[in-house]
């Protein structure tokens, strides 16, 4: 386990480095972007004087490096901002304040996270069930007509951009059949039943897309383990096929699936932009696109860092999970 701890620590350090580079990249990018955040924050009819005032207010007059240093300081030590009549404190992992509306970026992120989490976690559960199930089935029926059918179906799922799947699902379930409400995000805390009903279509869209990938991965991984010697051992000892597959083959096939799940979940926590846009889910991805458009640097940096954090974290978790699940893998 010490090996594992050290490995985890090393990955963590690398992750921090990656995040730092990410934030620098975003800052750098924003300096070359056309458009003036102060102008965008102030509104089109602001006078030049007003824009200048706002620019000072936002600290955009400072040299680029000073701004970045200020950002880092806020991140590690927190920062204060004037509300006019007093000051507002923004505690230690402070990502700054939105240019657009002066809100703390951390609280903005916290507001968006539940929607994204609802979308990703639900979709994940669904695609794991559909994907792994299909994968196992087609591995078992290897070479048969069932496998070919399943392969065709999964290929098809994999082949369509998510917003088309979404539209087709809406057409079918909302317009033609009328079984489902037109999706509209309702927070879980507000009404769990409505929350689930409204998320069914977004979940399905993502799950159809993703489960295709998982089915393919599970299938090939399963075929690998099914041809492994230890599976043969249990067969040779009269263990039932069901238990050979369920206990031994599936178990061996799972590590890559786990690894991929962690990675996908990471990416998805960064916001499934297209899905969120299509279904109007107020998640991280949607606000990311919005804030890039309004050049709301603090929000963009915050979102990119959160996304990056989840992706890098998921990468590391995937590797650790993989190593734990399969001790044969040497941690490198």
């Amino acid at each position: 386990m010490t090996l594992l701890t050290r490995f985890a620590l090393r990955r963590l350090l690398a992750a921090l480095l990656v995040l730092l580079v990410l934030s620098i990249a975003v800052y750098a990018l924003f300096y070359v972007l056309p458009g003036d955040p102060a102008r965008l924050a102030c509104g089109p009819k602001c006078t030049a004087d007003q824009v200048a005032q706002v620019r000072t207010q936002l600290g955009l007059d400072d040299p680029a490096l000073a701004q970045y240093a200020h950002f880092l300081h806020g991140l590690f030590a927190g920062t204060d901002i004037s509300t006019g009549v007093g000051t507002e404190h923004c505690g230690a992992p402070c990502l700054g304040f939105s240019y657009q509306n002066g809100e703390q970026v951390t609280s903005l992120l916290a507001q968006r996270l539940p929607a994204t989490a609802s979308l990703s976690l639900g979709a994940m559960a669904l695609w794991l069930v559909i994907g792994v199930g299909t994968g196992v089935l087609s591995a078992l029926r290897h070479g048969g007509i069932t496998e070919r059918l399943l392969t065709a179906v999964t290929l098809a799922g994999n082949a369509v951009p998510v917003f088309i799947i979404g539209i087709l699902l809406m057409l079918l379930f909302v317009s033609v059949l009328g079984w489902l409400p037109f999706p509209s995000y309702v927070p879980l805390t507000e009404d769990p039943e409505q929350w689930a009903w409204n998320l069914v279509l977004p979940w399905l869209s993502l799950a159809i897309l993703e489960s295709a990938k998982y089915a393919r991965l599970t299938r090939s991984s399963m075929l690998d383990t099914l041809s492994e010697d230890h599976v043969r051992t249990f067969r040779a000892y009269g263990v039932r096929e069901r238990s050979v597959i369920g206990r031994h083959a599936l178990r061996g096939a799972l590590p890559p699936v786990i690894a991929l799940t962690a990675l996908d979940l990471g990416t998805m926590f960064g916001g499934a932009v297209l899905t969120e846009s299509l279904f109007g889910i107020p998640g991280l991805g949607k606000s990311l696109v919005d804030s890039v458009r309004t050049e709301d640097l603090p929000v963009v940096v915050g979102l990119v860092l959160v996304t990056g954090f989840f992706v890098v974290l998921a990468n590391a978790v995937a590797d650790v999970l993989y190593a734990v699940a399969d001790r044969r893998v040497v941690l490198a």
Partner: protein
Amino acid sequence: MTTSDVLAAPGAASDTPEAAPGARQLWRRLRAQRAALAGVAVIVLLVLVALAAPLLAALEGQDPDAYHASAVDSALGGVPVGSFGGVSADHWLGVEPGTGRDLFARLVYGARISLGIGLAATVVQVVLGVAVGLAAGLGNRFLDNLLSRTTDVMLALPTLVFAIALLAIVPAGFPRPVLLVLVLGLLGWGGTSRIVRAQTLSLKSLDYVAAARLGGAGRWRIARRELLPSLAAPVVTYSALLVPSNIASEAGLSFLGIGVKPPTPSWGQMLSSATTWYQADPTYVLLPAGLIFVTVLAFTALGDGVRTALDPRAGTRLRAVARGRKGARP
């Protein structure tokens, strides 16, 4: 990066390229798979359509950018006049709502952009990915760490954000398709690089590379002679899956309004403007969606076929000779 993760997942890379087939054999095995063959046929057909777009449009007698105010009903929000989205002898596949532009002409012209961007972006991704992956796999620890972390950053970048930002930075005069190729290519090589690095690392430890070193071959020669041919298999497989994902990405960017510039038609752009019309004029959605679907399907089938054809398990194995004490090490 999704497919890359699958391919680059530890363990998946461990397949030593034993008995891997050469190009001739590859084609023979590919030919044996009906799905892959169908994929190839569809791709060839689509490429032909793209190349002959002006010819096909001329045959129909339509210009992809010409408006036909009379073909749509202004009072009804601009839905095409006539059934199935305004299908007629003049407009073989109907017209675009709101503008009355000819759909057939736009679809065939759109093939140029969609396929062109899909293929070209893949080339950029593969070239960059192979270069970085090889360098990381062959370089010393420092270089490897540097490049691997860079790859991590690439994979962690929210592609869309940077695509939006990059598209905003570049002067408006820059040809948009080229720009899209560059954006997709420059932001999307992480997966390839990871696969290539993993493969390089596992190949590097093989005895034939050691033999080449003993024979006096330098790094570059080893990379070229011993590694690249073996890397070709996973890279080709992966590229076949990259093409459709790039086509889908172009569609996605267009969906967010940052794809090719109007009036240039692309399937993605058509699809994105069609999304609001799916109830009032389903034909308008189904045409580009169907085409993208078929294309992506064809490439995926081809990719799968290549993967199967390259799978050492598909051929007869010479495992028996490798028995003996192999695998004895705990």
